[in-house]
């Protein structure tokens, strides 16, 4: 194979994966936003779009993946090179599979128990399972078993019996997933038609389909070219922003004689403890030297789309919206750029992957530049033109702002570009401030907990797995930031236009300038410090990792407690005859199709 073609193919795959990530998370975010609105306002939210499938087909669709999973896991445990005696990483994958088996088990039992509570038991097995208790107790039970597996696996799984644990875990996962799939499939196959709703995920799909078939109305006196061009100019930059964000740690390979990557020699990931010597494959689409500056160039282009749409529509409301969008985005671009200056001074690079590596080696950006984090976050929300900064749209004032005259797919492109801008800004924030793919104590060898120069804990993880964990950590951080932005959107009311401008120019801008000054002084101070003082700085960096880990643990425990807290119920008030009648029938769940 021509090495150039190989690299081009890899580049294409990376670009495709990142674009798919942006588009899909954007679509899912539209669903998250609507359902979150429901959850916040005590309603269900959109969950009714459905595809009716014949029961047999639905059963096949439900069981097929489970059988595939079982087959893959069995292959991993018995057929693959991992199952050979003394293979590397056997004990790690063994423990992982045991946990996966326990997870599949309790999730299945909990969902069966929940279904029995909803519609009654359909067979003796369900009756028996329902006697375990509520879904809540099943979850508690599952968490306890997880904890037991963690404790016992630490003692019992050694290098000698690692293969046994791997095969045991594989059998457990395969058996449980096949059993649960068979249970679900048998129930589905009995139904004549099954309405597949996927928790309401089909709603955005239905909306997309609807907009695609809507009439493409162009205002008669508009500037046709610019009117048609504007959605693309708004849409495209939001998507290509993701190109400079690293989605995982760089992979180190060997090189062959002519200096090309030799993919057969995977050496590990570029993380604390290892820098790639020669062959380096970064997990970002464009390995640009300008890095973060590319982000600003592209984000600035987005303004043009909104302003053009407002100008070309031949509508005063659109024009107002376009002007508002342009002025708002230009104002907040300034703050965004200035907050980044502090980061550039600390990290000493404009390349985003090197920034992440710096954070992995020292401390996360949110600890080094806390002020910049909040400023950047506020400015990023303002850049996406969403609530509380949705003045360009301003439904209560100027109809729909710069896309008043847009309908169908062109409107959907504006709408969607907002969501993709949320995704890309979240991805960038997590890379700049939250350590990107890095997790606390994450090194090129696995989890190594260091305090000062002493090593407290070490758990080695195979390098391939490390890359996967890193990518998952990055995706997880980005998605949590996206969800946070959605929640902010449902919490805060819209700013007034003068408030927005005052916030941008008279609050955020001076604070970001002060931030640069403080950062400069701090860096000067740190450079001129003695060796002992610099060591204590490094120690503080390690402590920040401990803080993150502790916060994560606290959040996990709090979440478990939250899950296990029962619902607070008030005394029933039989205020209406319908309620009294329903009580005689045993509530609405049992009396489903009555009347």
């Amino acid at each position, binding site marked *: 194979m021509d090495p150039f073609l190989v690299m081009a193919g890899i580049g294409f795959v990376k670009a495709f994966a990142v674009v798919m990530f942006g588009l899909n998370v954007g679509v899912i975010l539209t669903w998250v936003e609507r359902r979150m609105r429901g959850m916040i306002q005590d309603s269900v939210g959109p969950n009714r779009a459905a595809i009716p499938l014949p029961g047999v087909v639905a059963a096949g669709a439900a069981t097929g993946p489970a059988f595939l999973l079982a087959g893959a896991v069995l292959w991993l445990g018995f057929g693959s090179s991992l199952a050979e005696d003394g293979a590397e990483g056997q004990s790690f994958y063994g423990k992982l599979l045991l946990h996966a088996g326990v997870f599949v088990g309790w999730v299945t039992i909990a969902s069966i128990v929940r279904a029995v509570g909803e519609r009654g038991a359909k067979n003796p097995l369900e009756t028996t399972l329902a006697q375990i208790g509520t879904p*809540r107790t099943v979850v508690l039970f599952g968490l306890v078993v997880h904890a037991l597996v963690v404790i016992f696996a630490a003692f019992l799984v050694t290098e000698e019996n690692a293969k046994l644990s791997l095969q045991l875990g594989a059998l457990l996962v395969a058996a449980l997933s096949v059993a649960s799939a068979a249970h679900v499939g048998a129930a589905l196959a009995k139904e004549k038609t099954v309405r597949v709703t996927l928790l309401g995920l089909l709603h955005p799909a239905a909306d997309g389909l609807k907009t695609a078939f809507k009439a493409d109305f162009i205002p008669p006196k508009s500037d046709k070219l610019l009117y048609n061009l504007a959605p693309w100019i708004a849409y495209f930059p939001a998507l290509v922003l993701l190109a400079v964000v690293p989605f995982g740690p760089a992979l180190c390979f060997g090189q062959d004689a002519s200096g090309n990557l030799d993919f057969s020699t995977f050496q590990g990931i570029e993380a604390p403890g290892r820098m790639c010597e020669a062959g380096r494959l970064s997990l970002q689409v464009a390995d640009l030297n300008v890095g973060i500056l590319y982000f600003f160039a592209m984000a600035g282009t987005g303004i043009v789309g909104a302003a053009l749409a407002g100008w070309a529509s031949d509508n005063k409301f659109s024009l107002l919206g376009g002007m508002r969008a342009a002025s708002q985005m230009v104002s907040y671009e300034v703050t965004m750029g200035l907050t980044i200056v502090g980061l550039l001074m600390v990290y000493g690079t404009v390349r985003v992957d090197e920034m992440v590596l710096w954070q992995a080696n020292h401390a996360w950006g949110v600890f080094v530049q806390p002020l910049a984090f909040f400023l950047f976050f506020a400015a990023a929300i303002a850049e996406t033109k969403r609530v509380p900064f949705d003045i360009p749209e301003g439904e209560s004032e100027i109809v729909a702002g710069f896309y008043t005259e847009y309908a169908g797919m062109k409107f959907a492109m504006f709408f969607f570009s907002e969501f993709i801008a949320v995704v890309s800004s979240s991805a960038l924030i997590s890379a700049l401030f939250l350590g990107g793919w890095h997790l606390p104590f994450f090194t090129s060898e696995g989890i190594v907990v260091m305090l000062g120069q002493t090593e407290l804990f070490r758990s080695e993880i195979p390098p391939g797995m490390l890359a996967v964990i890193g990518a998952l950590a990055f995706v997880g951080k980005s998605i949590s930031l996206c969800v946070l932005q959605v929640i902010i959107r449902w919490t805060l009311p819209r700013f007034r236009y003068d408030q927005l401008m005052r916030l941008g120019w008279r609050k955020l801008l001076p604070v970001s300038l002060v931030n640069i000054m403080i950062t400069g002084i701090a860096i000067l101070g740190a450079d001129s410090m003695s060796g002992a003082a610099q060591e204590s700085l490094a120690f503080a960096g390690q402590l920040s990792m401990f803080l993150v880990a502790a916060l994560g643990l606290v959040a996990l425990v709090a979440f478990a407690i939250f899950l296990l807290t029962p619902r607070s119920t008030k005394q029933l008030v039989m205020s209406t005859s319908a309620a009294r009648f329903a009580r005689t029938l045993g509530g609405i769940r049992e*009396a489903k199709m009555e009347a």
Partner: protein
Amino acid sequence: MTASTKTLPTLGPRNVQGTPMTRPARTPAVQSYIPELLKGLGITIGSALRNTKELAFGTRPDPVLESINDGINTISYPEQQRPYPERFRGVHRLTQREDGSPRCVACLCCSTACPAQCIHIEAGDYEGDQKRAGYEKYPKRFVIDELRCIFCGFCVEACPCDAIRMDTGIHPSPYDSRDQFIYEKNLLLSIPGRQGEHQSENPRVEPGEEGFAGVARLQQH
């Protein structure tokens, strides 16, 4: 301020009496907007998490029984339906006699009482050697326009024979065209009551049977 608790202070140029409204103090915490922002975020996140949990665990409040409880109380309509009260006036039905013929004697009381004029009856006589010939009429046609009906229940009140009832518990289904809302006699006879019954609880004494309150016409002649 201590004296003003008894006598209200005078405010403004027009000397309006009243206590001034307490305004939040302009502390840095209030002015910076950040603590309130975090409080609001906490409320929305908590609400969203709690409701999501209850939906996932299937423990959300019963939309009818616990409709005043916190949480999601919406009814997912076609799948879940609010039970109608016992005396809910649904689609009409025509009750049957034991032999399956309509109880209706085509007296036109219901169509007269109907304020929406949605009932149309064509009366006919029982003929030949039928048991009821000479005693009663029967409806040759009995038509209700369910689209015109206002579900007031006057027809049920007016009926002397307990022949028309609205105890089906069904609300009229949506149809594609107006003709489908015209319910003919056979359809009305086939709609069961809530317990699936086609007859009425009230007894009906046929002519010739013991306790028949009507006039025995044939014997008079």
